[in-house]
C-alpha cells in the first residue's frame, strides 16, 4: 500500500512511485511497463471507464521500426480488443462527381508489421482491465472517475498531482498521458494552446452495418478490412481529408482538417462530414441505408509543429498527444502507436535512472530514448522543417497552385506518364511526408487528378445524415449542473466568434449548440456577442484554441460519455 510523504508543513500526502494520468494507449503502455518493472503505479482516469472520453479514426499501427508495439505489451490485443485488420488501402481523388482512385497499399505497408481498425471505448476499456490487473500486482491500480486538475509543487518543483476527487498525491515520477489539451502540459508550461495551425480537428461518425453486409459490400471476408481515404474538392477549400474504415459490425467514417483552415473558411465541421457521407461515391456502400450510432470529435496535434523535443520538467514526463506526438504522414494518421512507444519508453527511462538524485534524470533519459529509437525523427522529420520554409509560404504555394491549375500544369499532371508517377509519388513515404500543408497537397492536386484521370460516378446517394440536434440528442451526458468546465473570457465576436463555426456541436443559426452568436443593439450601435452553454460539449478542445476561454475538462465522470469512440 501507498506510503506517505510529508511536506515541510508536516502535511501527509499519499505517495506512489509512479502516477500515470490518463488511461488511453499512452497511459496504458506506461503503466503496463512500470508494472513489468515492479514499480508501484497508480493510474488516474477522468472517464467513468477508460475510452468513454476518447475518439480516434482509428487505425492502430504496429511499425516494424517501433521500439514498442501494443501487442508487445498486451497479449491477445488483436484477438480481444481490435476490430478488423486493414488488408486493402485506397485513396480517392475527387473533383465533383469524378473520382480517381489509387491503391495506397504500398505506402500503408511501408514499415508496417500489422495494422487494425479499433473503436476506442471497447479498446481502452479492455486495456484498463489489463492495466488494473498488472498494476494491482505491484501495489497500485487504476481509478476511474478521477480528474487530475493540476500539478503539486514544493518549493516551485513539481512533486505530484492534485485532483478534484482525491487529496494531493506525490510520486517519484508523474506521467502525463492525458491526451490533447493536456492540462498538465499546460500547467508545466511545456505546451500552450494558442496557434490554430498547430492542430487538426477530427470529426467522426460510427455507422451501423452488420458483418455480413460489410463483407458483401466491401468484397472482403471476416478476417479482412478496408481503409479508404478521400481528398479533393468535396470539402471546398478546407485543407484536410476524409476516411472510412471497416470495423467488425460498423464503419468509422470521418474527416480531419487543419484547424486554421477550418477557421479561415468559417466551415461547419458537421457539414463537411455530411459532404463526405452524401457524396455519390459512398452510395455503393450505403445503398440508401444509414444509421449513425455516434457522432464524435476531438482535436489532434500536429507533431511536425508541436512534438516537444524535451517533453519533461522535474519529475513530470509527457507522453502521446499530451506531448504533441501525433504524426500526420500525409493522409496516414499515427498517434496511438507513438503514444504506446513513448509511454513504454518513459517507464523504462524512469527505471534505468532510478536512484539518481536529479529529479530530471528520468525525463532527460526519456527524451534521449525518443531520439535514439527514431521516434522523434518520425514525429518531427528534419527534412520537413526544410520543406516548410519553401513550401508553406503562401506566395510560393499560390504560385505552385497557379501553375498546376494552368492548362500546362494540368496537362503535366494529367499526361499518361505522370499517371504512374503520381501513384508512385503517393506511395512514397518520403514524398508524402514532404507534402507541405497547403491546399496544393490537399485540394488542388487531388482535384486535378480527379478531373484529369477520374471516372464519373453516376450513383445517387440518398442518405440523409442526422441533423446536429439529433446527433447531440443521441449522445450520453452526465452534466455537472451549475459547474461549467469552460468559461468564456471575452464574449466579443472578434475574440470568440470563430467557435460558433469551428465547434463541432455548434453552428450558425443553431440555438441548441454550445456557442451562439447574437446581435444586440446598445445605444444605437450594433454589436455581435457570443454566448456559451457547455451542456452539449463533446470536450474536443477546439474552443480552447480558437476562442478566448478559461478551459478545463469536466470533473471525473461528468460530461459526455462515448460508447464507440
Amino acid at each position, binding site marked *: 500500500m*501507498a506510503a506517505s510523504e510529508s511536506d515541510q508543513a508536516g502535511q501527509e500526502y*499519499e505517495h506512489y512511485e509512479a502516477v500515470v494520468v490518463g488511461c488511453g494507449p499512452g497511459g496504458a503502455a506506461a503503466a503496463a511497463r512500470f508494472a513489468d518493472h515492479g514499480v508501484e503505479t497508480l493510474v488516474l482516469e477522468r472517464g467513468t471507464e477508460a475510452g468513454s472520453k476518447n475518439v480516434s479514426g482509428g487505425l492502430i499501427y504496429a511499425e516494424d521500426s517501433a521500439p514498442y508495439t501494443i501487442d508487445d505489451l498486451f497479449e491477445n490485443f488483436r484477438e480481444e480488443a481490435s476490430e478488423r485488420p486493414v488488408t486493402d488501402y485506397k485513396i480517392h481523388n475527387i473533383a465533383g462527381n469524378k473520382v480517381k482512385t489509387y491503391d495506397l497499399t504500398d505506402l500503408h505497408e511501408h514499415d508496417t508489421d500489422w495494422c487494425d481498425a479499433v473503436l476506442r471505448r471497447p479498446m481502452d476499456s479492455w486495456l484498463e482491465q489489463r492495466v*488494473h490487473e498488472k498494476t494491482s500486482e505491484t501495489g497500485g491500480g487504476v481509478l476511474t472517475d478521477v480528474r487530475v486538475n493540476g500539478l503539486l509543487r514544493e518549493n516551485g518543483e513539481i512533486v505530484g498531482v492534485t485532483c478534484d*476527487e482525491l*487529496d494531493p498525491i506525490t510520486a517519484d515520477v508523474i506521467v502525463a498521458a492525458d491526451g490533447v489539451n493536456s492540462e498538465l502540459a499546460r500547467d508545466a508550461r511545456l505546451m500552450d494552446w494558442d496557434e490554430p495551425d498547430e492542430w487538426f480537428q477530427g470529426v467522426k461518425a460510427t455507422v451501423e452495418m452488420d458483418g455480413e453486409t460489410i463483407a458483401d459490400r466491401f468484397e472482403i471476408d471476416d478476417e479482412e478490412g478496408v481503409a479508404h481515404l478521400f481528398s479533393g474538392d468535396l470539402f471546398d477549400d478546407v485543407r484536410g481529408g476524409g476516411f472510412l474504415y471497416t470495423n467488425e459490425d460498423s464503419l468509422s467514417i470521418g474527416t480531419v482538417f487543419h484547424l486554421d483552415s477550418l477557421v479561415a473558411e468559417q466551415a461547419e465541421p458537421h457539414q463537411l462530414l455530411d459532404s463526405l457521407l452524401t457524396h455519390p461515391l459512398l452510395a455503393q456502400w450505403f445503398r440508401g441505408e444509414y444509421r449513425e450510432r455516434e457522432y464524435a470529435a476531438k482535436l489532434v496535434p500536429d507533431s511536425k509543429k508541436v512534438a516537444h523535443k524535451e517533453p519533461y520538467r522535474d519529475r513530470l514526463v509527457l507522453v502521446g498527444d499530451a506531448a504533441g506526438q501525433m504524426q500526420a504522414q500525409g493522409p496516414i494518421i499515427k498517434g496511438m502507436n507513438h503514444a504506446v512507444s513513448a509511454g513504454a519508453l518513459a517507464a523504462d527511462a524512469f527505471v534505468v535512472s532510478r536512484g539518481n538524485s536529479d529529479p530530471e534524470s528520468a525525463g532527460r533519459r526519456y527524451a534521449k530514448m525518443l531520439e535514439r529509437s527514431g521516434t522523434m525523427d518520425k514525429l518531427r522529420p528534419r527534412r520537413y522543417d526544410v520543406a516548410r520554409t519553401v513550401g508553406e509560404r503562401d506566395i510560393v504555394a499560390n504560385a505552385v497552385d497557379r501553375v498546376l491549375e494552368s492548362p500546362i500544369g494540368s496537362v503535366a499532371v494529367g499526361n499518361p506518364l505522370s499517371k504512374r508517377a503520381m501513384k508512385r509519388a503517393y506511395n512514397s513515404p518520403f514524398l508524402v511526408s514532404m507534402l507541405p500543408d497547403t491546399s496544393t497537397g490537399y485540394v488542388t492536386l487531388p482535384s486535378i487528378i480527379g478531373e484529369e484521370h477520374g471516372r464519373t460516378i453516376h450513383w445517387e446517394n440518398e442518405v440523409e445524415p442526422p441533423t446536429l440536434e439529433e446527433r447531440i440528442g443521441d449522445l450520453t451526458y452526465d452534466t455537472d449542473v451549475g459547474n461549467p468546465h469552460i468559461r468564456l473570457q471575452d464574449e466579443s465576436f472578434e475574440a470568440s466568434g470563430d467557435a460558433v463555426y469551428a465547434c463541432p456541436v455548434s453552428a450558425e443559426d443553431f440555438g441548441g449548440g454550445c456557442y451562439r452568436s447574437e446581435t444586440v443593439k446598445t445605444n444605437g450601435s450594433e454589436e455581435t456577442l457570443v454566448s456559451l452553454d457547455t451542456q452539449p460539449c463533446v470536450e474536443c478542445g477546439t474552443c480552447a484554441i480558437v476562442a478566448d476561454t478559461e478551459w478545463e475538462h469536466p470533473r471525473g465522470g461528468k460530461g459526455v460519455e462515448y460508447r464507440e469512440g
Partner: protein
Amino acid sequence: MEGRMRSVVLTKGVPDFSEGAVSFNEEGHLERGKTPTVMNPNDEVALEAALQTKVRHGGHVSGMSMGPPGYASVLEEAMESVYADDSYLLSDRELAASDTWATAITLCSALEKYQETVAEIDLIFAGFKTADGETGQTGPQTAWALERPIVTHVLALDIDPDERVLRAKRLVEGDVDEIETVEAPLPCMVIADPEFSPTYRKASHRLTHKRLRGETEERAADHEAHLTTWNHEDLNLDPDYIGLDGSPTIVSSVDPIPKAPSEREATMIEPDDGEGMERVLEELQPYAGGD
C-alpha cells in the same frame, strides 16, 4: 493488521413500496404476501457507513437481520451493496410479530452470542427508522440493552483506531439545524442519518473499495455458504419474552389515509412554448376576480 474494525450492521427487510411492486387489498391494507421484500432504504446508509469503516481501517463486516427465512435475500442484497463478509439471520416462528422492544431484546442476545462465539464487536451500525414501522426505536433500545454508547444522526464519521475513539459529525435538528462534532469510545453503536455520505479522498481507499467489490461479487454468488441462521434456542431466549408474547406494544390497526378524489380537470400547458405564460394568465383570469 493494526486498527482492524469488527462491525455488525443491523438491517431489516421492508415491503417494496415502489410503484408497481407494492400491493394493497380492497380496504387499502398492505398485502405483505404479495409485496416483495427489499432492504430498508435507510439501512443502505448504515451499510455505507460500515463499508467506509472497512475500507479505511480494514476488518470485517457482518450483516444481521431478524425476520422470516425469506430475509436471507435482504442480507444477500446487503452483502452485495456493502461487501459484507458474512450474514446472520435470526429467524423462527417464535420471533414473529415482535415489536421494537422484543426485537431489541432478540438483537441484543444475538450480538452477545456473536461476541462470545465469533469475535469482539467494535461497531454496530443501524439505519435510521424503517420504511414500514417508522418508529426509530429499535436501534436505541438495542444499544440500551447492550449497555453501549450510541451516536445518532451521523453525517460523517472517522475512527481513531489507536485511541479507540469514534469522531462523528451529527445533525441536530431544531429551529435551526446544527452540526455537532462528538467523540465516543469504542465499542459503540452508530445510527447513520439518511444524509450520511461516505467519502473516499485517498487513492488507496478507492483501490481497496474496488478490490472489495471484486471479492464480494464472488462471495455473494454463493451467499448460502456465508449465511448463519440462529433460532430462539440458539440465542437462549425464553419464548415468553420474545415475539408477539414478549411485545408490550401491539399495532392494533393501520388506518389508510384516503386520497382525495380529484374533482377538477387539469389543463396542461407547455411551459417552454413561448406563449405558455400568456395562456396561464388567460386560464387564471376567470378565477382572479376583479376585471
